[in-house]
């Protein structure tokens, strides 16, 4: 705040430099082979660097889910914005998509045979790690909420609803958000 740059971050919040924000998101974008980019972001930003609390991250991810677009850049925009205002959001957006873009164009232009066995095998290995990463992430995010029977019930029912019925995001939200609004209000009272 002393720099007078108008960033909205309160003084008790970590205030990483734009370079640090771009560095973290850029490094994740460049290395998230096989998927799991959002999970990698949570691991770096919440677990390692503690730029955000667990509940803040879940809140931002929730908003990203109901807004259009791929989740990783959306989450990066919101985290960057929270840490450093508009410049942070731009740094987050750019860094979360440009390295992936450069690597994609590079491998497309060298006319890589995507179906080469070694490459397919490497990607399968990376994707398996992405499953482990995403699952570890889901476990860590769910742990603090296990105390609430109502919340755990909602988590399980929503997961089964989506898996069994292949329900769309909008149908799932339309059905379960009102239920959750009522159920969690009772829990709070």
């Amino acid at each position, binding site marked *: 705040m002393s720099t007078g740059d108008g960033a*909205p971050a309160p003084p008790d919040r970590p205030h990483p430099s734009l370079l640090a924000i771009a560095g973290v998101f850029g*490094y994740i974008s460049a*290395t*998230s*082979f*096989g*998927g*799991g*980019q959002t999970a990698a972001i949570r691991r770096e930003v919440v677990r390692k660097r503690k730029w955000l609390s667990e509940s803040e991250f*879940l*809140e931002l991810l*929730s908003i990203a*889910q109901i807004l*259009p677009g*791929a989740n*990783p*850049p959306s989450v990066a*925009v*919101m985290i960057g*914005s929270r840490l450093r205002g508009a410049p942070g959001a731009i740094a987050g957006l750019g860094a979360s*998509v440009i390295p992936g*873009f450069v*690597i*994609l*164009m590079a491998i*497309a232009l060298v006319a890589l045979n*995507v*179906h080469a066995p*070694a*490459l*397919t*095998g*490497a990607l*399968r*290995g990376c*994707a*398996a*790690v992405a*499953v*482990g*990463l995403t*699952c*570890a992430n889901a476990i*860590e*995010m769910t742990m603090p*909420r296990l105390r609430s029977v109502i*919340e755990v019930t909602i*988590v399980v*029912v*929503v997961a089964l609803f*989506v*898996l069994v019925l292949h329900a769309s*995001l*909008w149908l*799932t939200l339309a059905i*379960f958000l009102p239920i*959750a609004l009522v159920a*969690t*209000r009772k829990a*709070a009272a």
Partner: protein
Amino acid sequence: MNLARLALVFAVLSLLGFGGGSAIIPQMHADVVDHYHWITSAEFARFFALGKLAPGPTTTMAALVGYAVAGALGALVAFAAVFIPGGIVVFVAAHFWERLRGNPWRERFARALAPVVLGLIWAGVATLARGAADAPLTIGLAIVAGALLLRTNWNQSLLVLAAGIIGAFTLR
């Protein structure tokens, strides 16, 4: 002219693509293959495979469609159009959300949304696992990676790299 249409198609995708990449890709196919005939379905499948292969969001494959339509400039235009409009919407929404701080409805909404989104995340884990943890070795890799990431502060990128090398030799 082509560039403007390219920008428009991907900007609309960026703004109406609710539900993340898995919802955007089928709509992208409908637009660029079925409606505009910019590329064939086989090309789309190849671009999708490349998009999965490269790190970062699969939606980045829009750049390959742009390249096929209008070369390097087309790639840049499609890439910018598929991420920037959505990014601006997210930024404005985040700003609005920040300004609601202290409003009891904001707290209630966030509290209700959290378990629903966690349910969606778990469904995502199961879907991902069905496709990617499908053989003894990939199941093993997923479990070992998950356990290591829970127990240690090891870098996830190193695990991805290691699994890529293991996979290149054994998962053919």
